[in-house]
């Protein structure tokens, strides 16, 4: 091990053969294979179940014996399309709103010095420790009384649900963004100000472009989080045509005896594909986002 300054793989391969290679490196591959089997077998199972027509729980155990897309076709008459659309719209609007509101707040905290700035930052840090779902009863009662005044903001309405989600938008995200905004040098805004730009121009046309990477991360985390949110969505939305994927698919899988298992599996695969694709595509950013702001 004298070549640690510049270890090349060839050196190791020349050195390690047979038993020595196995005790130091080879066994790791065995662990890897076992680990992958553990990680993906439920996913293979659900994929297999989705390809079996009229599958029930027990009929899904024979993995990949049939390849039939009829479950995927049958989804569309059963409300799945509506739920998927609802989920996409609700998650997208929430993500955009979160980015805009969080970005604006982070800009204010990063660029202006005003009374109560430190205190508000600390307050935000404390508030974000308490998830909104703890107040689910109060949110439900609040939406009940809002319904009399603004029907579209009340219970069983998607706009109302989006507003609830936006209520939790500032917490974590402001900190992620605040840190990133601080890395953009203030000299850039000073120069623009001297050229006569207003604060609104600086914000919309310069800063938001410079911090685009963190905006993308926050939008993604918000989208994924809203997409999988269940308890508030279930409390607020009761009519089948208004439900999100999480609430709708839960209904299919909840009733064990009569569960349309094949249908649920197909819905689960379709619901998961966009999220998995986003993850794989943006893996790098998510990891840095995770370690930077402790999100999950």
């Amino acid at each position, binding site marked *: 091990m004298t070549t640690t300054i510049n270890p090349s793989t060839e050196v190791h391969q020349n050195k390690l053969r047979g038993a020595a290679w196995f005790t130091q490196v080879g066994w790791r591959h065995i662990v890897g294979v076992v680990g992958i089997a553990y990680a993906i077998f439920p996913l293979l199972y659900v994929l297999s*179940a989705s390809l079996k027509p009229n599958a029930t729980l*027990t009929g899904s*155990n024979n993995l990949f014996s049939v390849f039939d897309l009829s479950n995927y076709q049958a989804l569309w008459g059963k409300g799945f399309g509506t739920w998927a659309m609802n989920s996409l719209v609700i998650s997208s609007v929430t993500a955009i709103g979160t980015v805009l509101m969080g970005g604006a707040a982070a800009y204010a905290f990063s660029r202006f010095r005003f009374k109560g700035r430190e205190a508000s930052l600390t307050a935000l840090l404390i*508030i974000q*420790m308490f998830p909104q*779902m703890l107040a689910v009863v109060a949110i439900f*009662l609040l939406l009940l009384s809002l319904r009399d005044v603004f029907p579209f903001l009340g219970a069983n309405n998607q706009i109302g649900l989006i507003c609830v989600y936006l*209520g*939790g938008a500032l917490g974590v995200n402001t900190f992620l963004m605040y840190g990133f905004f601080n890395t953009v040098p203030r000299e850039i805004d000073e120069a623009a100000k001297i050229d006569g730009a207003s604060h609104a121009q600086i914000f919309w046309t310069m800063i938001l472009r410079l911090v685009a990477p963190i905006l993308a991360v926050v939008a993604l985390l918000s989208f994924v989080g809203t997409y999988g949110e269940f308890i508030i969505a279930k409390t607020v939305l009761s009519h089948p045509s208004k439900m999100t994927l999480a609430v709708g698919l839960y209904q299919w899988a909840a009733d064990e005896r009569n569960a349309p298992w094949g249908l649920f599996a197909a819905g689960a695969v379709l619901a998961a594909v966009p999220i998995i694709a986003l993850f794989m595509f943006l893996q790098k950013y998510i990891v840095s986002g995770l370690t930077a702001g402790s999100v999950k």
Partner: protein
Amino acid sequence: MDNGRARNFKAGFIAKLFLMALLNAFGLYGLFSAWAVSSWGVFTGLAVGLIAANWAYFSRRAIPAKYLYPGLIFLFVYQLFSMAYTGYVAFTNYGDGHNSTKSDAISAILSYNEVRLDGSPAFPVAVLEDGDKNLAFGIVRDGQPQVGTSDNPLASVDATVENDRITAVPGYTVLNFNQVVQRQQEVTELRVPLSDDAKDGSLRTQDASSAFVYSPILEYDASADTMTNKETGVVYTPNDRGNFVSDQGEKLTPGWRVLVGFENFTSMFTDKAVSGPFFQIAVWTFAFAFLSVATTFALGLALALIFNDPRVRGRKFYRAMLILPYAFPGFLSALVWKGMLNERFGFINDVLLGGASIPWLSDPWLAKFSVLAVNLWLGFPYMFLICTGTLQSIPGDVLEAAKMDGANPWRVLRSVILPLLMISTAPLLIASFAFNFNNFSLIYMLTGGGPNFAGSPLLVGSTDILISMVYSVAFESGVKQYGLASAVSILIFIAVGLISWIGFRRTRSLEEL
């Protein structure tokens, strides 16, 4: 400085004016309708919010406020207010049977306890429907055609009358027999008050052809604040629990919302029916959150250490595969596992265990084990990711030095890697603890909290954690008890807050090391 921003940014200024006009229109509309339904809380909130918006966007000095306003308004309404409201509800008996104010309860009691008075006149009735499909009754009273709905008492209208029965009213359709049959239940439930005074009684019909006057059997005496039964003479007086009660202890429903002090909190510890399940659930919540973090961290760290060796080929592939469970939406995983763990038909018993019938989800201890095992599957990729990330930031020469000093790998891990790793992962572990403390969807989707405790009035069970207990008490346990549910929420607030606070203090001391 008088060079106004507005002139520099014309398009923006017009956009702002337009948006503010929209916002103000929306706010004014809200103020009017809040006034109309006497929703004073909403009214006050709106007024304050609207004034703040106009101040923030038309003042020249409040630049930070312009950027903070949108986020803060949502934060105030949907997070801070709902937290405060949770606190308030926790001290009331809000729930089924105590849903509203005292005056609402009085009018509800009066109208639920109605009898047809002997000898009250029968009116030939016409069932009407307005443009919005709301039902109404039309009768001829004192020679005058009159129409009323459940919200608006009878009032005179111009109508065509044949044989004492209304046959046409402008703005309404007279329902024929078939249409009445279709909405039969609504028709028989409809009560049209004779006047604004509940004492005068209301009009009801059983057959949609003749209607009778029903009047309240109870009488409310506002000066003495008592209810009297006109037939039996029993007097009901209000108690401090929000109910009218007779001397014999007979209660009138519904009641109204009253403050009950710490009762919801104390009942968790003293009321046998609640305290037994509550203690079990509280202990399990801590155990579940702790074990979840411990198991996922152990597996994630082990895998990260194993694949941190640069000599292992295909590490990228292993990583991509191992994080798949994290990428799969959590609510779906829990449901898939629920299917796979099914006692009779699930994949685990049927295929992997060759047809065994192990009650994974219906035996109290096995269900707890299953919840942890599924959460391990869900959670280890996250720990794997963060451990991989932080392992790479540990300088190689430190490890080299340890090796030189003759430390075996186990010792290196314990004395060098772990302490360094902890500095950056400890806050994440605390966050993960807080997350699992409230991991509602896993519990709700996998076991539904079951198997349920036998004989408990609350619909809770062995795998319920505190947050799923809140949900069950508020929405699923037959009788909704918002007050008790909110009290449990408050306890979770306190527990999570305390743990995070202690945890973060400890990690700060780690950093100083």
